C-alpha cells in the first residue's frame, strides 16, 4: 500500500498545452469606479475573440435596459498598451450607431480578436433605478456570444462641478437650483437661496471664506445687505479631508466617493447655520430649511474674495 502511494506520489505528470476553445468567446469588465451619477459615463471594456481558422468577427452590440443619454457610444477602435504605457487604438470597425437602447459597431477589418470600449451616458430617466448592459458579439460563422453586466444602481443624487463664487457678486447659493446668483438674480429667486458666500480678511479673527445661511446672526454676515426676501436658514457642518473623487477628480488624494447612502444617514440635527474660516479642500454638509435637500459643497480652490466650489446634492 505504502509502495503504491510512493509510486503514485512520485509519478511525473506530463504538462499538456491547454487547448483553445474553438467557440466564439467574450469577456466584459466595468472600468469606472464610484457611484453612477446621471450625466456621467459608465465605461466598459468588452473583449471578444474567435479562432482565425474558424472565422472573423462581424459585429458587437451593447444593449442597455434603459436607453443611454446623448453621447452614448462604443469605440470602433481596439486598444493595446504601448511600451510607453499609452493606450493605442487600432480602427477595426465603422463608428458605432446607437438606436434607442442598442449601440452597434460593425467590423470593417478582418478581425478575430478585439476589445471595444463602451461609454454609457446615464440618462435622467435612470435616476434611482437599476441598469443592465447586455453585450453580444457575432462572428461570420453564425455564432453569437453574450455577457450581461449589472444591474447597476443609478444614484439619486446629482452633481455640479466648478461653480465660481465671488464675494460681493456671485455670492448667493441655491441648493434647489444648484446655481449661484448675484444680488439682483437672488432677489428673483429669493425663496430658493440657502447660503451666502462671503470672504472677510479680518485682523481680529480668522473669518476668511465662509458659507452662512441668510437667517444667521448678523455678526456672521458683516457688511452684507441681503436682497429682499432672502431669509432662509439651513444646517451646516464643516468638514475636512473629505476629498470626493467626483468633485475633485484631479486631486492626488481624492480617493473616496460620497454616495446616496451618506446623504441618507447624515444627521445634521443641532448643527449651526453658518460655517466660518473655510479653506481650500474643506467641505460643508448642508441641509436646506425645508428639508428637501441635503448637499455636500467642496471648496476646490480659493483665492482672495473668491472660490471655486463643487456640489453633490441629494433630494430627500
Amino acid at each position, binding site marked *: 500500500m505504502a509502495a503504491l502511494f510512493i509510486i503514485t506520489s512520485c509519478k511525473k505528470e506530463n504538462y499538456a498545452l491547454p487547448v483553445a476553445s474553438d467557440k466564439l468567446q467574450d469577456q466584459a469588465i466595468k472600468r469606472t469606479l464610484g457611484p453612477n451619477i446621471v450625466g456621467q459615463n459608465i465605461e466598459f471594456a468588452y473583449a471578444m475573440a474567435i479562432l482565425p481558422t474558424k472565422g472573423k468577427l462581424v459585429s458587437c452590440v451593447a444593449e442597455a435596459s434603459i436607453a443611454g443619454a446623448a453621447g452614448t457610444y462604443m469605440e470602433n477602435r481596439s486598444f493595446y498598451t504601448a511600451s510607453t504605457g499609452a493606450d493605442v487604438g487600432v480602427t477595426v470597425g465603422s463608428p458605432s450607431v446607437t438606436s434607442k437602447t442598442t449601440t452597434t459597431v460593425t467590423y470593417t477589418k478582418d478581425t478575430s480578436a478585439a476589445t471595444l470600449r463602451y461609454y454609457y451616458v446615464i440618462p435622467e430617466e435612470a435616476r434611482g433605478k437599476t441598469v443592465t448592459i447586455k453585450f453580444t458579439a457575432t462572428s461570420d460563422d453564425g455564432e453569437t456570444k453574450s455577457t450581461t453586466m449589472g444591474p447597476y444602481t443609478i444614484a439619486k443624487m446629482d452633481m455640479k462641478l466648478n461653480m465660481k463664487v465671488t464675494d460681493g457678486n456671485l455670492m448667493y447659493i441655491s441648493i434647489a437650483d444648484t446655481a449661484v446668483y448675484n444680488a439682483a438674480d437672488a432677489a428673483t429667486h429669493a425663496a430658493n437661496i440657502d447660503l451666502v458666500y462671503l470672504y472677510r480678511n479680518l485682523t481680529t479673527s*480668522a473669518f476668511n471664506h465662509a458659507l452662512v445661511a441668510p437667517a444667521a446672526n448678523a455678526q*456672521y454676515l458683516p457688511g452684507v445687505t441681503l436682497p429682499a426676501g432672502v431669509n432662509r436658514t439651513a444646517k451646516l457642518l*464643516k*468638514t*475636512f479631508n473629505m476629498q470626493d473623487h467626483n468633485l475633485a477628480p484631479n486631486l492626488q488624494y481624492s480617493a473616496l466617493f460620497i454616495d446616496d447612502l451618506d446623504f441618507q444617514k447624515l444627521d445634521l440635527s443641532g448643527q449651526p447655520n453658518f460655517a466660518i474660516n473655510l479653506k481650500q479642500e*474643506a467641505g460643508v454638509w448642508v441641509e436646506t430649511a425645508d428639508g428637501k435637500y441635503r448637499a455636500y459643497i467642496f471648496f476646490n480652490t480659493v483665492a482672495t474674495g473668491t472660490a471655486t466650489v463643487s456640489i453633490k446634492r441629494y433630494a430627500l
Partner: protein
Amino acid sequence: MVYKNLNLQFNTMKKNITIALFILLAATTWIACKKNTPIDEDGLLITSRRECYVSSFEMLGPDFVSVRVGTALIDTMAQTVKVTLQFGTDLKNLYPQFTLAQDCKLTPKIAGRTDFSDTLNPKKWTVISGDRQIQKTYTVNVSVQPR
C-alpha cells in the same frame, strides 16, 4: 525473587512520578492564583503614581481641526482650564482633548461631541491619579474670540 525486585522498583518509580506530578500541579496552581498587578474597572493599570493634574488641553471643531486661539491656560491650583475659541465656533459641537499626568484617567469619559454653549454652567471633568486615590475636578471655561 527477581520478579519481586522488579515489582518493588516499579512501585518506587510510580511513587516518584506521583510526587513529581503533585509538585507540578501545586506550582501551576500557585502561579495561577498569584495576584497580578491590579487593574481598575476600565481595565487600566493601577499604579503607585500620585500625580493628578491636566498638563495640556485642546479643543477641536466638528471638522476635527483645532478652534483654539493661543494656548489654553491651565491652573492646577484652582483646577481650571481657560480657553479662547475662534470667532464663529459653534459651542454646541466641540471635541475637547485633555492630556493628563502619567497613569491618570478622566471622568466622565468624552464619548463624542460636547456642548459648551451653557457658559454660565461650565463643564467639569475629574482627573483621577494613577493610584486611583486622588481626584481633582477641573472646570473648563470657554470664551469666543470677538470678531
